[in-house]
Structure formats: C-alpha cells, structure tokens
C-alpha cells in the first residue's frame, strides 16, 4: 500500500511545492549508508552528501548546506560516541542544520544530553527505526522543520517506573499515552492523527497534563519535549 505524500504541517493555502529536504548521511558502513540514501531519495529527500567518519562529516556539512544530518553515534576515529559529539558540534556551528543521531543502543542520558545541548532540530533514535520508512521520513521532516524526536524506547523506559509517588500517578491512561507522544517529540497535530482524536480533544488533554504536572504550558512544540523528559526523569 503506497503511502500518501506526507503532509508537512499546516501548508500555506497556495504556492509552489516546498523544495526537497537536503540530507547528509554519516555512517561507517557504506552498505547501510547507500541503502538509507536510496530509501530517502525514494521518499522525496535530496541526499547531498555522505561521510564515513566524524571528521569527513564536518567537511561535508560545511560544503553541502544540508537541512538535516543523519549520523550513526559510533564512528571512527574513536568508535565511541563520535556521532553524538559531531551532532553537538554541528548544532553549535550550523544552527539551521538539524541532526538525527542513530544508535544500536538508546540511553536516556544521551538523549537528555543531546536535548539539553540544543532543544530543537535534534533526534535520537534506535538504528533499526529506519526500517519503518514512512515513520522515519516523517521524523526527519519534523526535525528539518525545527522539531525534535526521541526514541519511544527511551520514553517507555523513563515512564516505566514512574508514577506511583509523583504527579504522574494522577494522569489518566489516555493522558499518559499523550505524555509519551509529547516526550517523543510529536506535535499536537501528529498526536491527533496517531490517536484518532480531534485537535480540540488533544489540546484539552495536553492542557490537563501540564496543569497536573505543574508545568507551564509550552508555547511551542519544540521546547516542551525537554521539559516533559526532564520532568519524568526527576519524578
């Protein structure tokens, strides 16, 4: 079943189609990189550069002017968390470029570190999330637009033990579902689509969640991810 073309947020009533999102890929496995490049090209992205290590990535980002970078966390030269450091550097040096970090393992601490460093235009996902092509493409677009994305595993891990003693325990089941989606970086609009709810209902739930947790209602979708994650973590 072919996916319908994704709707990138509120579309201007008229005008030319938005230009394709420019992507740079970084991974030390050529095979994976090529496969991902092909998938992204077929999904309407423009892959403008590839790199096999953190150093090359910085060079390519400087030249290719991408909208978003997809990078593996573990790359040469140190095969440690080079990708994470590269992401932070790119966010600092090229504020307009979003970064999605992929990893074989997801760790809460790394996710929060990434968001704390730059609360928007960042993503942190398990590597095999790329096999859900449509979802992955949507996430990438969200980051390119200024949003953020945190792997559902991270959020699930965080939420698993929370709730008994804190205000989280006062949330209804539906509110908890919505809280998880907020923490994953999804907008109200995306939450409507995913849970088949009306925008009004979602807004009501979000307002209620923020009130129960004592958080200030966040003006934009981007900054509330970190606020919610930090809240859950400290609960």
């Amino acid at each position, binding site marked *: 079943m072919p996916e319908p073309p994704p709707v990138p947020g509120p579309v201007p009533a008229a005008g030319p189609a938005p230009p394709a999102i420019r992507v740079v890929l970084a991974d030390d496995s050529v095979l994976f990189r090529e496969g991902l490049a092909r998938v992204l090209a077929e999904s309407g992205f423009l892959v403008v550069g590839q790199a096999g290590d953190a150093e090359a990535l910085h060079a390519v980002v400087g030249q290719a002017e991408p909208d978003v970078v997809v990078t593996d966390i573990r790359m040469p030269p140190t095969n440690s968390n080079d990708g994470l450091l590269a992401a932070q550097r790119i966010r600092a040096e090229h504020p307009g470029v979003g970064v999605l970090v992929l990893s074989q393992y997801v*760790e*809460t601490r790394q996710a929060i570190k990434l968001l704390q460093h730059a609360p928007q235009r960042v993503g942190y996902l398990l590597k095999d999330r790329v*096999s859900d092509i449509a979802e992955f493409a949507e996430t990438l677009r969200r980051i390119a637009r200024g949003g953020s994305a945190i792997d559902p595993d991270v959020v699930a891990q965080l939420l698993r033990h929370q709730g008994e003693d804190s205000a989280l325990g006062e949330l209804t089941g539906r509110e908890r579902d919505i809280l998880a989606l907020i923490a994953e970086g999804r907008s109200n609009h995306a939450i409507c689509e995913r849970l088949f709810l009306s925008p009004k209902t979602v807004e009501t739930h979000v307002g209620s969640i923020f009130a129960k947790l004592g958080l200030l209602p966040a003006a934009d979708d981007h900054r509330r991810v970190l606020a919610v994650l930090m809240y859950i973590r400290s609960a």
Partner: protein
Amino acid sequence: MTPRRWWLAALAVAGVAWILGGEWVSIHHGVRENHLIDALGGLAFLAGGIIALDRRPGNTIGPLMIAFGLIGYLGNWGNLNVPVLPLLGVSIGQWAGAPILAQIALSYPTGRLRTTFDRVVVGLIYAAAISVIVVILLVFDPRSAGCPACAWEPAPFPSGSAFLAVTSGFQRAGAALVLLFLLAVWRRFRRATPAERWDLASLWVAVCVIALIYLLGAFASPSPLADPFAYLIWELQSLLQISLPVIFVWGLLSARLARSAVGDLVVELGRSLPPGELQASLSRTLRDPSLELLYALEGQERWVNARGQPESLPGPGAGHQARTVTVVERDGRPLAALIHDPALDQGLVRAAAAAAGMAIENERLHAEVRAQLEEVRASRQRIVEAGDRERRRVERNLHDGAQQRLATLALSLAMIRDRAGAGPAVAASLAQASAELRQAIDELRELARGIHPAILSEEGLPAAVESLADRSSLPVRVVADFDARLPEPVETAAYFVVSESLANVAKYARASRAQVELSRCNGTLRVEVRDDGIGGADPGRGSGLLGLADRVAAVRGSFRVDTSPGGGTRVLAEIPCDA
C-alpha cells in the same frame, strides 16, 4: 685465664705500683696536694686502659689511656733526689699528657684518626708539647724551681726565668690548640650519622670535660702558696681528670650495653611479633631508625619487604646516603638482608641478626607467602582483564558486523515491502519476516549489551549504571557523587557488581525498589546496591555473588553481602581506584 689476661694483670699490678709508689714519694717529700685525688686520677686511667685493652684488643685507645695514666706520675717520682728523674717529671710528666688525651678523644672509639684535619690537629698538639719538653730539658734549673739541694746536674742552659716564660707562654698558646681541637670535634659531630652520634655520646661529654680542663689550665697553679685561687683550679682540674676515664670506659662498654639490647631483642622476640614488626624491633635494638629488613625469596634472586612487595638492594651511596648491606645467611643460602647505617658495629649487627634468626626465617616465610599471594592476585587480575578485553572485542565485532548487517537487511526488506506490487500472501510473508528480523535485532542488541555495555566505555560508570537502572524491571534509584572516568578495570568490576546485583534483585528478592550508590572517597570507589526485598541471599551458594567477590578481589577490592530474612539485601564493594 688466657695468657693475654695474665699479661694484663701483670701490667695492672706494675701500673698500680708505679702510681702508688709515685704518690708515696710525694707524701714522703711533703708535697702539698690532695694525694687521694692525685692517685685516683692515675688509677682511673690505668683501670680504664686495662679494661679497654681487654675488651677491644688491637684498639690503640687502651694503651693510650694507660700511657696517660702513668706518665703523670713521672712528676711524683721526680721528687726523689735521683739524677734525671726530676727533669723528666717537670718536662715529660707535665706536658706529654695533653697530646695523648687529644689523640684519645679524636680517635675514639676506633683508635684511628679519620681525617687529615684530625691528624693535623693531633700532630700540632704533639709538636707543641714536644717543643715545650725540649725547651724545658734545655733550660730547667732545679734551684729556681725550689729544690736547691737537688743532687743532680742542671740542664745545659739553666735559667729559672726562661723556664717560667716558656711554660706560661706555652700554657697560653695551648688555648688556641684547644680551640683547634674543639673544631675537629665539631666537624666530627657534623659528619656523624644519627646512629654514630648516639654511639659517640660519651665522647661529646668527655670532650667538654677536656676542653674545660685545658681552658682552666691557663689559670691554674700547682702551688697553693703563690695563688690560692689558681691552686683551687688546679685541684678542680685533677678532679675533672678522674671523671675522664670513667666516661671513656662507659663509652667503650656501651657497645656491650648495646649487646645487652640484643638480649632485650631476644626477650621481645619471645613474645610473638605482629608481622612486619621485626624491622622495627631490629631498628630499636641497633638504634638505627633508617634500618630496613628485606627477605630473600627461596630459589629466586629477588628480595621482598615484609608485605611481600618486591624491593631491590641499594647500591653503595655516598655521605648521608651511604648504606651497608648485611646479608643474613642460613646454610649458605641468603635469608634476609639488613640495610643499615655504615657506622653500626658489624659485630653487633651480626649478633642482632643471629638473635633474630628464627623470627627472620618466620617472617621471611610470611613475606614469601605474601609475595606468592600477590603474584596470584596479579595473575587473576590479568586473566580478568584479558577476559574483559575479549568481551569488548566481541561486542565491537557484533556492533560493526552482525548488528550493522541486520540493520541494513531490515532497510532492504522495508524497501522491498514498499516497492513490491506483490499479492497479499507475499506482503504478509514479508511483514512476518520484518517482524522476525526486528526480534532478532532486539535479541542481538541485548546479547551484545550483556557482553559489554557500550555506554560504559563511552560515558563511564555512573552513566552505565543509570542505563542499567533505566532498563531494570523495578524502580532503581541511582546516587553517584562523581561523574569522572575511572581506570577501566575498576569501572568494569563495579559495573558487573551493579548489573549482577540488580539481576539478582529482579530474580529473587521480590523487592519493590532498589538503590545503587556510587561514591568515591580517599581513592576508593564504593559501590552499594540495596533493596527492600525478602533478603536471604547467600554469597556462598550460586555462582553469581561468588563470581562478583572474585572479580572485586582481582582488583584488590573488598566485597560484602549483608542480608537478613525480611530485611532486604545490601551488596557492598569497595575498590581502590588505582587498581
């Protein structure tokens, strides 16, 4: 009695006869002085010299003391109206004592003059004394010295005024020589090692007395009629002189006192010493705070200290760094080595080592066992570290190999699913294959994480422990008071303590929550895992806790499990951070 002792006894008898005879002559001729003090001065030196000759054969101090004691009585014998004797009395009897005393003091206790400076000083004093003696022999006039009826011929150029001028002049020049002598003694004190200074305590006292005697000499007069005050000083000099041999003999016998300290050592060793105390005992006995005791490992050319740590014997140093190595052997095999101050009497060191023989053998065995234990521990650490290296390698290979390929495969499968215009049967198969693959990737991820957690190498212990807590099936609170990196073996050991303990909590403890505390204090990492479960964990049973204890021991750490039924379980590991 040995023949040598017979000779000494004969010498003693002759000496006593000479002294008492001299004193008898003095009394008979009505010499006005305190005869008791006079006789005691000579007898004390004679006795001291005989004792020194007996105890320290070959040492020149004994003969010098005897000579000093006897020469003075030439003066007494000089009262006899016999040719030459009075002349010898006022010359040699009066003046030969000072250089002998200086030689005794500066060559004490070995009887050898050590430095050129010492030899020059003693030489000068001898030269001055001989000059005075020669001049007196040339100019002495018994008539002007108060003995007009003396029956012998005067010196070649008799002159009473010249005699007085020369003697009083040389007495005053003597003050300069005394200062030179004191300088030589001061140099000796400066250069002495602490053990030497202690041994020479009697010398320092004696030197002060000698200096006092000769400084007083400038004001003394043997004649009570001419100047009562000067005569008083003369008697005081004699009294001080009696104290000198006592001081010297005490000093020479103090080596014997130290030997009786060896006796104390034997008594001390009778009680069982705590391990490592032997060195302190020997150090006390030999009065050498710098003394070290090393033990030889059986059949190996290696030395270890009491704790079993390898040490090497020092080379010959210079000055204050100079060390002497005395090797204690048994049946021709080295047992231990005493590293000590070169000033220590070798005989005394050997005596102490012999007395401590059993204790040394005992402690050597202790040290050997400790050295072996240390070797075993080090090899265990190497084995554990090799295992950890291998685990990291396997994890890296999985990450770069299988995990990467499976991720790529998942991507390809997704592409096929998206593109294929296949029928529903094929689509369903593809979906199932994707799900299976997803499952495989998850399982492989958990496997790789169990082999070696990437986050531990990437971000350190607190991050890795938080990650464990995040994935635990029960709520785990992590408290860490540091975020710094520690040596890899420490991090790995601590990580496995937490991971294994949390796994145990999840499996057996029926706990509602757990807490992990990581803290660093004084170079030690403290890892504590507590739960509120049913308790009853048995570290002796099951390989989990036992394996942890082994792992912690391999990095010199301690491991403890506190548990009581219903009271939860507490696992505590303390690991030195420099392991």
